[in-house]
């Protein structure tokens, strides 16, 4: 009982309730276009918050979240087009494939540390892009993969409408954030932090650091795969250029802008970055220039990102 009253008195609780209500009411308040942008933002929010588990908790810098997003998207689309599987089966299958690729690459790559690992994942992202581009028999190459089926109607709910799909993505998003948050605050999360803080020390305590790094890497890939699968049947057109190293770089920027090691920080980062990107659509290259400059300034002056900035303002106010 005490716990509940404490829970209700906390400012944080009301803040989260307000955000949730806003997200639920969103399609009735804004145009379909904004809803559409929010769906895309939610995909990125899923990717960055899972990436935060890898970067912010396990301390491993990787540059291939865009590739896992792409593998999830292409695999799910191909299962439904070439094998004729229902989307409810093709998305889980694509997630399994993404996780397998991550485990296969992560196993040798995670024996490396820091920059070596980062460079390897950078290359993985490029290699995956080359596969999307060149294996024309499978992915239709530079022409793009068309004719992807929408999610089948379930219980009379037609998922080809943006609003209904928005709710589905919102549920997936909420579930993944909840699971990630619980993971980050569990014993597993503590293991990740021990790897981040001092790998040698963790190892000397008998912690299997390679295993925990691999687990963090696979979890982050898995969530990116889910987002990819959901994206494929929402956008219904896949093109290799959506999944270049620039996508992976944007994921890193969003995470760092938000503030690493917080799970929620990157969500703010993803929303801010996505919406400013949308507003600056008239100058496509300039917006990436702006974000790259922003990232460099953040790294030099406020490494904890927007979360750190908010805390700093609060302290000044007091």
């Amino acid at each position: 009982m005490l716990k509940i009253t404490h829970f209700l008195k906390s400012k944080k609780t009301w803040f989260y309730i307000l955000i949730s209500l806003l997200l639920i009411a969103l399609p009735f308040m804004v145009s379909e276009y904004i809803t559409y942008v929010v769906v895309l933002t939610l995909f990125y929010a899923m990717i960055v918050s899972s990436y935060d588990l890898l970067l912010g908790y396990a301390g491993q810098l990787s540059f291939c979240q865009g590739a896992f997003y792409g593998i999830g998207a292409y695999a799910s689309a191909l299962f439904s087009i070439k094998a004729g599987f229902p989307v409810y089966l093709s998305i889980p299958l694509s997630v399994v494939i993404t996780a397998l690729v991550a485990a296969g690459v992560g196993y040798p790559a995670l024996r490396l540390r820091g920059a070596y690992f980062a460079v390897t994942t950078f290359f993985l992202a490029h290699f995956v892009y080359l596969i999307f581009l060149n294996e024309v028999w499978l992915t239709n190459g530079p022409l793009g993969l068309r004719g992807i089926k929408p999610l089948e109607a379930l219980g009379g709910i037609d998922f080809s409408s943006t609003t209904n799909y928005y709710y589905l993505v919102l549920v997936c998003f909420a579930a993944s954030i909840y699971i990630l948050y619980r993971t980050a605050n569990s014993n597993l999360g503590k293991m990740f932090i021990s790897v981040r803080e001092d790998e040698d020390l963790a190892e000397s305590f008998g912690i299997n650091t390679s295993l925990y790094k691999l687990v963090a890497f696979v979890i982050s890939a898995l969530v990116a795969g889910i987002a990819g699968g959901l994206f494929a049947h929402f956008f219904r057109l896949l093109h290799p250029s959506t999944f270049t190293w620039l996508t992976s770089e944007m994921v890193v920027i969003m995470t760092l802008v938000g503030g690493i090691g917080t799970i929620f920080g990157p969500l703010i980062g993803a929303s801010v970055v996505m919406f400013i990107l949308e507003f600056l659509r008239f100058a496509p290259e300039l917006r990436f220039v702006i974000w790259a400059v922003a990232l460099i300034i953040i790294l030099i002056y406020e490494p904890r990102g927007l979360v750190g900035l908010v805390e700093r303002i609060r302290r000044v106010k007091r």
Partner: protein
Amino acid sequence: MIETILAQLVNGLVIGAVYSLIAVGLTLIWSIADIPDFAQGGIYTFAAFAAYFTVTLLHFPYFFSLVVAVITGTLLSVTIEKVCYRPLRGSPFSQLLVAIALFFLLANLAIFLWTPKAKILPSPLEGIILNFAGFSVSLQRITVIAAAFALFIAVNFLLKRTKLGKAIRATAQDPETATLMGINRDFIYTVIFALGGCLTAIAAALIAPLYAVYPEMGTLPLLKALVVVVFGGMGSFIGALAGGFLLGLIETFGAIYVSVAYQHGFAFIILILTLIFKPGGLFGRS
């Protein structure tokens, strides 16, 4: 048949020379300053554009544009070190992120300024064709290979025979003790970044007439040079040299005999194999 092999051998050496030139600078920077300097990819692009504008806009001769490219590359590299890497010294994690952000920034800035369209940098050397017993090759290609070798000899002389080179090697071995011996660490960092920027710029300006000048031209050479650094062995001059040429040859011959589409994927396979079987690299310690 033999002509094809000879022609591909020259192509492989030309590409290899570019990888080696960038890799020599990268391996120095990576082993001494502990930064995998992704920004060199952007410097490569900007140096090539500097050469391009010197020739097409200002109508200076091609040889003069090489000088302009080198000045651009060196200044850019030194400025980046001073402004972006120096404040973050001691936190390699942030430095790596800044390096990649710079790479992303310079590539997109180039697209913003000069559009993604590929441009041709004319060179008088490209028109001169040399004949060796029925086998012909343009003077530009010969120049790339010859210039690369001349530079390697010069860099080797600098590192092994001069006092400055001794100071650089001392800093690489043990930065703290080197500082105690009166070596100015900041100055050494400036020198290695200048050297790296200079070598990258020369590589870009030399190869630009053979291919094209466009904003994303730096991405692949940079990634391959990073692989060469790991493949050859971190901090190894000879490793960067040999690794670069070897990768160039593997790519050109792999493109004919294995797959053209995955020409740029071979480096990834080499990287993974190196990391599994010989993590120290070909000429690395351990």
